[in-house]
């Protein structure tokens, strides 16, 4: 009970803070950065469920992000379907693909799983680039309609920002609820000891598949929101580098904590905006963060702070 109330409180605080944030900004452009951060955070929270809680790596999550984005773009633009249909189709398709890929893939572990998800990501990336009639190829897909739902059009960046924050808050709430349930316990059990999990009656294959699909769906939700926000998408946003960036966000924020992924996503998305010379050292810095985090701070920023607080009190 206690944990539940605390979650509700933190999420309300987070929501309030996020909603007030744009008022403190001097430059409208930053709303744009915040939206992208929020979208990345949605993917990262999902990836964290897989990576941090269930202990299964995916180096192909950007592919799910992109798959949903392209599906809704193609359906709503080329085929003029209503946006809501495009969005649903995008999310459902991603779930389906994750399910089909997941059945054989999740039998693998460690290096094999990393390789399989990575290979999947690269195949999808190549398909985005090469099916030019469908996707527009490397130069991108243009003319995607801006999101409008139930007659309301999210034309201003600010309204879109509120939408993204709202979705993120719901995703967070659900994730926290999930973690504190028997399902969350089963996932964490699989992470530490598959043997002991089995003995407790947990069907590990089923749970791995479940969380893989769920995290892909979250990536899909962020993907459709991304497409209908930017109105333009290109394969380069959904490649191997982006998959690695997503993993970096989760690792940096802290794999054992739902909030870690959010912190990591906002930090790494906004960082380039604040470092002028960043473009040149971007990679270098990401690499450095990954190494240092894994070596000295395996629980990430949020996990590290929590530990510190616990030690002090």
């Amino acid at each position: 009970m206690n944990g539940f109330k605390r979650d509700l409180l933190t999420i309300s605080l987070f929501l309030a803070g996020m909603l007030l944030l744009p008022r403190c900004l001097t430059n409208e452009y930053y709303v744009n950065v915040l939206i992208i951060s929020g979208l990345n955070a949605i993917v990262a929270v999902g990836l964290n469920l897989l990576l941090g809680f269930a202990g299964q790596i995916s180096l192909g999550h950007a592919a799910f992000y992109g798959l949903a984005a392209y599906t809704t773009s193609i359906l709503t633009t080329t085929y003029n379907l209503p946006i809501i249909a495009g969005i649903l189709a995008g999310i459902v398709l991603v779930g389906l693909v994750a399910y089909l890929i997941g059945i054989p893939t999740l039998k693998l572990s460690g290096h094999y799983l990393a390789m399989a998800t990575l290979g999947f990501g690269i195949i999808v990336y190549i398909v985005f680039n090469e099916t030019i009639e469908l996707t527009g190829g490397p130069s991108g897909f243009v003319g995607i309609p801006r999101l409008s739902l139930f007659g309301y059009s999210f034309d201003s960046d600010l309204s879109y920002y509120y939408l993204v924050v709202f979705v993120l808050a719901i995703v967070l709430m659900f994730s926290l609820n999930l973690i504190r349930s028997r399902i969350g316990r089963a996932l964490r059990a699989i992470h530490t000891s598959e043997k002991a999990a089995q003995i407790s009656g947990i069907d590990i294959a089923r749970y791995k598949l479940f969380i893989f699909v769920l995290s892909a769906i979250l990536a899909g939700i962020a993907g459709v929101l991304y497409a209908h926000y930017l109105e333009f998408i290109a394969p380069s946003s959904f490649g191997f580098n982006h998959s690695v960036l997503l993993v970096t966000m989760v690792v940096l924020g802290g794999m054992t904590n739902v909030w870690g992924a959010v912190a990591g996503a906002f930090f790494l998305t906004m960082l380039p905006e604040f470092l002028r010379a960043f473009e040149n050292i971007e990679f270098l810095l990401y690499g450095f963060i990954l190494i240092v985090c894994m070596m000295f701070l395996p629980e990430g920023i949020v996990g590290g702070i929590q530990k510190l607080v616990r030690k002090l009190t």
Partner: protein
Amino acid sequence: MLVLGETVMVLLDYIQFLISGLTVGSTYGLTALGFTIIFNTTGIINFAQGEFLMLGGMLSVFLLKFLNLGLLPAVLLAIIITTCVGALIERFTIRPVQKSSTINLIIITIGISIFIRGVAMLLWGKDTYALPSFSGDTPLSFFGASMHPQSIWILSITLVLLCLLKFFFARTIYGKAMLACSFEKKAAYLVGINVQRMVLFSFMISALVGAIGGVILTPLTMTSFDVGILLGLKGFAACILGGLGNPFGAAAGGLILGVLESFGAGIVSSAYKDAITFIVLLLLLFVKPSGLFGQAEVERV
């Protein structure tokens, strides 16, 4: 006659595909070999393996162009520097965290690879560089198919390197000691092998092999700061194709992958040549994760 002519043409094409496939495939094989050497002594998959190839090529270009060294000294120096980088990686990032879980080690080596790539980009920018061929660019004719002289260099150096490694692991006590570490670590300690040092050596040898692969490939394909990604991934794919942990399976996996890719590009579509690699790989992983030449033991990791 027309039909016969066409058959000959097709045959010629096939020979051409085979040659270019084997050429590229041998660099995949070398990369895969690098993965295997480290994996066998430590159980780690070094996702930064591709960067050794990049460093080999880029450093050669840099030493040749900007320091005005001759081709041979530049290449040799580049290989030596890369080998040292391998040693540094082991000493400062792998050794302190050896007991970490697989997932953490994967993330660390990915971090290393991004870091090295970042440094390379900072130093040399995003341009593409060329390295002169070792012996001119005049194509040689081979059963009517044309062949770049560098291909011969690549094939022969790969072959020599394979033989040397085979000799090292099968005939010298140090090679055997290195294998011993992977088979039975505890017993390796007990016969007086300094396992820690063997791990260091394995990183150095694998960096060396990677650098040589990078150097010989560069005159044919050019190089830039990010060539390591795809080369590394394909090397890893070759590794799994041949059976993780089996050095000669890895080399064979590389050749098979190269040929497959070359035929795929020639017959199906060049656009999907990279996809072919990974589709084959995924299918293999689903059907037989132990690889074509591996034992049925997947739970090594």
